[in-house]
């Protein structure tokens, strides 16, 4: 029989306690920080909320001179640029991830993987500069005139490509965001696809499934939770991205149906105007914008969680 040293056992117990307490403390700290952020945002935003009420989120006018502030334009800009970004980055990122894990010749796997990771490491200011000096002129000269000419006059959808080609604007911001979130989505999805057990894929092949069928019926269902996670990670970044967007969106507090028109987002409004915000109401309105972003992000995460739960239930029932 093993002889147990009681002192050793006692130290073990102490370590165990210390470890437990430390991890619990860390977990509580996260809650405290989150709560603290929420409380200070609400307090800072309170004057504006009290003054404008619900109208704050439905009014478009943003006029520091007359002290009139409405958040509709930044909310609209934030949502639309993020939607554009996700509409492009999700399918492309999905494709990159699938290519890297399932189809890529081994020789290319590393170079492409590294390139994706490097893209994620480029500071956002670089994307901003690139968007302003390289992408925007190209769009202005070549892409936007074509869109205006060929789609702009179609009734219904034509409205989204209307007006003069500024180069900068909502569309450009959406494109820059797409490029920025792409590596995150691609890298997360690739990592998830990589976790699919090889034997599971082989079972698919073993039943006579083609590569495509194995991807759709084995790899994707097995990774759906991770796929949604990757999308949400990208969306979170797109919603909050500030610097690059500020460079290329035009910073106009305006809601315009045309994607070619300049606009603004919540985070770029705050970044642009915080230093020059004079007057309590102005500052408070900017903080209220921050609170809104906080809520939007929060909602996105909540929806994501709900989706994940539904996916899991579906997985059980298919």
């Amino acid at each position, binding site marked *: 029989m093993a002889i147990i040293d009681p002192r050793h056992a006692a130290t073990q117990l102490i370590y165990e306690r210390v470890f437990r307490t430390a991890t619990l403390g860390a977990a509580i700290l996260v809650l405290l920080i989150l709560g603290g952020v929420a409380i200070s945002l609400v307090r800072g935003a309170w004057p504006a909320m009290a003054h404008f009420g619900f109208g704050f989120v439905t009014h478009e006018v943003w006029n520091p001179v007359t002290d009139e502030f409405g958040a509709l334009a930044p909310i609209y800009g934030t949502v639309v640029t993020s939607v554009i970004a996700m509409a492009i980055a999700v399918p492309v990122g999905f494709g990159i991830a699938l290519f890297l894990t399932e189809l890529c010749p081994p020789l290319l796997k590393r170079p492409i993987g590294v390139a994706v990771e490097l893209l994620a490491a480029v500071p956002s200011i670089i994307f901003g500069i690139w968007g302003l000096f390289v992408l925007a002129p190209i769009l202005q000269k070549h892409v936007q005139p074509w869109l205006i000419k060929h789609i702009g006059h179609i009734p219904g959808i034509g409205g989204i490509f209307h007006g003069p080609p500024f180069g900068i604007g909502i569309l450009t911001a959406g494109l820059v965001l797409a490029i920025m979130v792409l590596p995150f989505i691609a890298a997360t999805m690739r990592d998830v696809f990589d976790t699919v057990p090889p034997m599971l894929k082989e079972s698919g092949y073993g*039943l*006579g499934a*083609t590569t495509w069928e194995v991807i759709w019926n084995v790899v994707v269902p097995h990774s759906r939770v991770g796929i949604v996670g990757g999308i949400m990670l990208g969306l979170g970044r797109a919603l909050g991205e500030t610097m690059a967007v500020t460079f290329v969106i035009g910073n106009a507090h305006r809601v315009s149906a045309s994607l070619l028109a300049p606009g603004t987002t919540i985070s770029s409004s705050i970044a642009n105007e915080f230093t020059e915000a004079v007057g309590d109401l102005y500052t408070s309105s900017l903080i209220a914008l921050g609170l809104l972003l906080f809520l939007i992000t929060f909602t996105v995460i909540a929806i994501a969680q709900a989706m994940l739960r539904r996916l899991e239930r579906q997985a*059980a029932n298919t």
Partner: protein
Amino acid sequence: MDTFTPAGTILNGASVQDALMSARAVNVFYATKHAVKNVSLDIARHQVLALIGPSGCGKSSFLRCLNRMNDTIQGARVEGLITLDGQDIYEARQDVAQLRARVGIVFQKPTPFPQSIYANVAYGPRIHGLAKDRGSMDELVQTSLERAGLWEEVKDRLSQTGTSLSGGQQQRLCIARTIAVNPEVILMDEPTSALDPIASAKIEDLIDVLRTNYAIVIVTHNMQQAARVSQRTAYFHMGDLVEVGTTNMMFTNPQQKLTEDYISGRFG
């Protein structure tokens, strides 16, 4: 049957009358590793062929040649001739998906898809378009599960995930999934090595029943299992096929010293 032998000798007992599949001078390489060396071996109809031998001797490598699973491994190369009903399965116009529908495989660990029990079984028939409507699919799923001896245990929970079953049930689910596409040959790579004795015994009984409809090739490390379930046994050693014959003969009167040593547990 031996007329198209490309090269090398064929061991006594390696060929059979009216073989369903036959391998001639098959070599498998992984990059530079020569894993299977010049193996010629037939697979008979309605019979279980056991592949035995020490770890790393090339049993799985050979098995996986038979439905071209090695195609999915980077750097794997297969040489030689393998036929199914006289057709070269490695020729360019062979549809690999079709081949694998005819030569199914069951792996060492149960690998149910992350879907319902029903969907797991229905998967193969679905991709190969084997069931015309919901009704015939239901029927196909039921008969497959029945043949795999799992129906009674799961008939009330077909919509639960396959992973919610026990290990032995999962493995029978995987067998049902393979049966559902109505293959001619079933390859099994150590199908019971992750299971307890009772679950293993069920699978063994099942194999014996399945033999009436399918040709079965099973890799196993368990000598008793090989003796119980197979009619023919082939002994591999370091990539070579050393000896092959009726299971009875192999276990009572092996001709090769290596075989005898392995079977009597002197190494391996």
